[in-house]
C-alpha cells in the first residue's frame, strides 16, 4: 500500500485545485520559503482527521480555508482527498484504491468521506488504523518537530511501540 494521489482545493494556500500523483519509493518536495510545502503535509494531517491546532498550525478550524491574498478573495470551501493504492488488499474490501476525504464549508460542519461516502470521523480513524496509519505511528513528522519523538515521556514511547505491536 502507498499514497497514490493527493488533491487539495481551497485548503490554505491552495486556492486553485492541485493534484499530486505519487509513486512508491522516494518523492522529494522542494520550493522557496513560504511557497506551500508544509501546507501539503498539513493537508494530509487534516484529511487524516487531525483536530490538533499544533499539528495543523491553526488557531481556529476555519484557518484551513484559503484566507485570501491581495489578488484573490478568501475561499468559502476547502477539500482534501488522499487516495491510497490498495493493490496489496491491506484495506480488504477488494477495492484497487481507497479514498479518504475531508471537506469544510465556512460556517458549516466538517464532512468526512470514505470512498466518497459520508462517514463519521471515527470511521475514518478506524479505517486509517487498519491501514497502518494510526496516530501513534508518526507517519508525518512536522517541520521543526523531529525531536518530539525523543522528548516525549517514557510511557508515551511505550505507546508508540504498543501501537506497532
Amino acid at each position: 500500500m502507498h499514497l497514490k494521489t493527493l488533491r487539495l482545493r481551497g485548503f490554505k494556500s491552495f486556492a486553485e485545485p492541485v493534484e499530486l500523483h505519487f509513486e512508491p519509493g522516494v518523492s522529494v518536495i522542494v520550493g522557496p520559503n513560504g511557497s506551500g510545502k508544509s501546507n501539503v503535509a498539513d493537508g494530509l494531517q487534516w484529511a487524516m482527521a487531525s483536530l490538533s491546532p499544533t499539528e495543523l498550525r491553526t488557531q481556529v478550524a476555519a484557518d484551513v480555508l484559503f484566507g485570501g491574498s491581495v489578488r484573490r478573495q478568501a475561499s468559502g470551501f476547502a477539500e482534501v482527498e488522499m487516495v491510497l493504492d490498495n493493490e496489496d488488499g491491506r484495506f480488504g474490501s477488494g477495492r484497487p484504491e481507497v479514498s479518504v476525504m475531508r471537506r469544510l464549508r465556512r460556517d458549516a460542519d466538517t464532512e468526512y468521506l470514505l470512498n466518497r461516502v459520508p462517514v463519521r470521523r471515527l470511521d475514518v480513524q478506524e479505517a486509517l488504523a487498519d491501514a497502518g496509519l494510526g496516530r501513534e505511528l508518526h507517519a508525518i513528522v512536522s517541520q521543526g518537530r523531529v525531536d518530539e519523538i525523543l522528548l516525549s515521556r517514557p510511557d508515551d514511547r511505550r505507546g508508540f511501540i504498543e501501537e506497532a505491536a
Partner: protein
Amino acid sequence: ITERFDATFVEVERNFAQVIDTLFPGGRGRLRLVEPPAAVLVDDDGVADEPTPAIGPGEPGVELEVSPAGKQITRLAMLSGGEKALAAIAFLFAIMLARPCPFYVLDEVDAALDDTNVERFLSLVDRYREHAQFIVITHQKRTMEAADVLYGVTMANDGISKVVSRRLPRDRREAFDPAVV
C-alpha cells in the same frame, strides 16, 4: 497484550541498535524498559510508605540511550541539535521496521544535519525504500538528488501555491538544478 508488547519491544530494540550503527558509526544505541515513576503508596493516615519500585501505576516506560562514538552514554538532553535529529530518526525507523506505515512524510528533518549526516540519513532512506514510501520535504541539495520523483511547489505574487512535478531518472541525478524544477 503484554506478550505482544514484549515481542515488539525486543524487535524495536534490535532495529534501533542496527539503525544507530548506520547513523552513529562507532556509537551505541539502546532502548531500556524503565519502571514508571514509582507510585508512593500512602497508608491510611496519609503517611507515605517506602515507594515500592516495581508496582508503579502503569506499565514500564521506554527510555532511549544514545552515545555517539567516543562519548559517554549521553542523556538525550545533552546531545547536539544534529545528534538529536539523528537519534529521533533512528527511533522512527526502528518502529517503522517493526510495523511500517504505508507512507512517511518527513518535513525538513535534515535541516540540522551536516553533509556527512545527510548522507547517512539518505543511505537509510535508500536502504528501506522497499519497506515504505518516503515523501521528504527539504532544502538540502543532496536530498533532492536522492529523489525518484521531484515536486516543485511555487507561489507567484498572488499568494497561491502551485505544484509541478518531474521524474528524475536515476542516471540524470547529478545534473539536477533545483532552481529549474
